[in-house]
């Protein structure tokens, strides 16, 4: 069934552009006195969060409520999940309540895929981040932010990101955001370069549709957008890099480095930022940094995804790879 959103890699170029265009219209709802549309009235969406993620959850929740869906929030903490109930049992319990869609955040890579393909439930599954696998709505909101900033709101309609040079910096190895962005940006025609210490790039990255570089300074002048990924301090203890200071010096974005970027280039971050580690306050608070915009765009993108997957009698987005062989 073509009715889930599991991976950014499942989206065709036309699907992705359609989602971005729809999000552009959704964004205008936020400017109205009544920020609500009746579109998903009578549909029930559950936000099934096995990992803490207040940002992503409230973003989905805002999107669902703006579309008038009935929203159930299910956090694994304090629930029967912590008492050993399985994903399958939880999902089936929710479905028995008549849920039309499950927005799932899970610490295990592939959990949303399992939910969508194992026959446990019939509901539409939307991946809100799984392990170190995928976070497709994040990639979509990032692409949306880039298109708005680099091409323009109206000028961007119907457009992809052909020829745009995007640099993603940081802990690629543990990042579902990086994986999703590489897939989606490639689909949208952008040229992606990953920059990280070699320890934080996965074995097998040579098969990804992107370039890999270890020297940030040489890449910055050729970047239209630079996306900084969060680097968890714990990684230091596992010897991924020697010290926080050395990481910041080699891969952090500060004012001097930002000055090497072209005039029009933007700085992005999926949040939450570790100021002083991968990004300095000067950069984070600058005009070129889109972090706050990305949050707002997240709601518009999620509204678009919800509308396109749930708004009709069948989804408008044609997945190619989620289908079982």
């Amino acid at each position, binding site marked *: 069934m073509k009715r889930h959103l599991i991976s950014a890699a499942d989206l065709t170029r036309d699907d992705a552009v359609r989602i971005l265009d729809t999000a552009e219209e959704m964004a205008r709802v936020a400017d109205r006195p009544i920020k609500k549309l009746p579109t998903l009235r009578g549909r029930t969406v559950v936000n099934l969060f096995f990992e803490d993620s207040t940002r992503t959850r409230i973003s989905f929740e805002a999107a669902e409520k703006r579309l008038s869906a009935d929203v159930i929030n299910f956090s694994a903490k304090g629930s029967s999940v912590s008492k050993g109930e399985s*994903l399958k049992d939880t999902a089936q319990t929710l479905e028995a309540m008549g849920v039309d869609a499950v927005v799932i955040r899970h610490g*295990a*890579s*592939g*959990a949303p895929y*399992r939910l969508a393909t194992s026959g446990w439930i019939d509901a539409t599954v939307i991946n809100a981040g799984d392990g*170190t696998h995928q976070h497709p709505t994040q990639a979509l909101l990032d692409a949306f932010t880039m298109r708005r900033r680099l091409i323009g709101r109206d000028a961007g309609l119907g457009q992809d990101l052909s020829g745009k040079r995007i640099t993603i910096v940081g802990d690629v190895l543990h990042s579902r955001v990086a994986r999703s962005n590489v897939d989606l940006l490639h689909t949208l025609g952008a040229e992606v370069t990953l920059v990280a210490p070699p320890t934080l790039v996965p074995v097998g990255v040579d*098969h*990804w549709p992107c370039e890999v570089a270890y020297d940030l300074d040489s890449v910055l002048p050729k970047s239209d957008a630079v996306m900084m990924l969060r680097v968890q301090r714990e990684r230091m203890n596992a010897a991924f890099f020697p010290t926080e200071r050395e990481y910041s010096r080699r891969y952090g974005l500060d004012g001097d480095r930002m000055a090497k970027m072209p005039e029009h280039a933007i700085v992005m971050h999926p949040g939450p930022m570790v100021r002083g580690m991968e990004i300095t306050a000067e950069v984070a608070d600058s005009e070129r940094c889109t972090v706050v915009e990305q949050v707002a765009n997240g709601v518009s993108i999620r509204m678009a995804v919800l509308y396109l997957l749930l708004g009709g009698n069948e989804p408008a987005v044609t997945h190619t790879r989620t289908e079982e062989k």
Partner: protein
Amino acid sequence: MSKILIRGAKVLGGEPQDVLIDAETIAEVGAGLSADGAEVVEADGKVLLPGLVDLHTHLREPGREDSETVLTGTRAAASGGYTAVFAMANTFPVADTAGVVEQVYRLGQEHGYCDVQPIGAVTVGLEGKKLAELGAMHESAAGVTVFSDDGKCVHDAVIMRRALEYVKAFGGVVAQHAQEPRLTEGAEMNEGVVSAELGLGGWPAVAEESIIARDVLLADHVGSRVHICHLSTAGSVEIVRWAKSRGIDVTAEVTPHHLLLTDELVRTYNPVYKVNPPLRTERDVMALREALADGTIDIVATDHAPHPHEDKDCEWAAAAMGMVGLETALSVVQHTMVETGLLDWAGVAERMSFKPARIGRADGHGRPISAGEPANLTLVDTAYRGAVDPAGFASRSRNTPYEGRELPGRVTHTWLRGRATLVDGKLA
């Protein structure tokens, strides 16, 4: 009726012959044998092999009887053509004392479907710290000769050295589960292109290869023999090949699933493909087949690892590792080795019966099909083609990666010391 005449069987895949079983022994092999007083089994061109011997089986009893018991596991073994299985030590409690190994051994004897030869733990509780009472287990009624911490690696080089040395006293062998623990923290699948894409923790080939390299050098140094469990990478093959060329006394096994399946299957996130060691790449599969054919890898061992449904009907990270294999092993070997022209049936007999019996010192098993030998035999309908249906398994568990897959060959009869344990595909 104590006499059985197997008529027209291709012994080890050769010309059809008759084989007469009298009581527990093969009485005669030849053409046109008299059926007088014997029950006749029309082999009709099926292939007759020596009873298969599995050096690597998890029977789960004691402790995890919800997934398998000695009874269900040995019934599965008989269904798959096995007459002897070596039961791994990672039970609850661990088979690290004479008491536990004797219990498992006796259960096998009582049920009578298949000889069960317990494997003893190398270290107490499989913890890799302190040697278990290897001598006591050897001297017990179970007569343990194979020792393994399988499931865990004997990663401490000193403990491994001592174990290799110690078992020399009674002709034992240490079967190493080669997995460097630090390199495989959080590992969920083969590290490579697919793991990078799926975001699953990578299990590098080097974690296996580095331990094998160390252990063959240790075995060489102390003059012991060492057995490598479920070898899974092309690099491991190279190391074993090098060690054998140096005259190091190393033997190695490969599982049927590593001869057929690759990590591409993990893209389904279906935990039925989650196994330790993980499914590797096409290149590894080809190297393993070639190594099994040229003798670098000595034997096929199933690593039959039953798990209850709920341990596989879940997300990948939460799932248990392992696959059942006793009832599909021969079919997979026929498919991957015989039908590809890499092995003939005599070669299969060598790798699935003669050699594993020799490595494990399983007396009375893995013997030639000739007069005077124990009648441990397996009759295979090699012309059979059919989809694997786990519902028909004798094993208590159904975690097979082959469900619905068409595989050739079917074991129709198994005889354990002249007594039929499987007749026309049905357990006796």
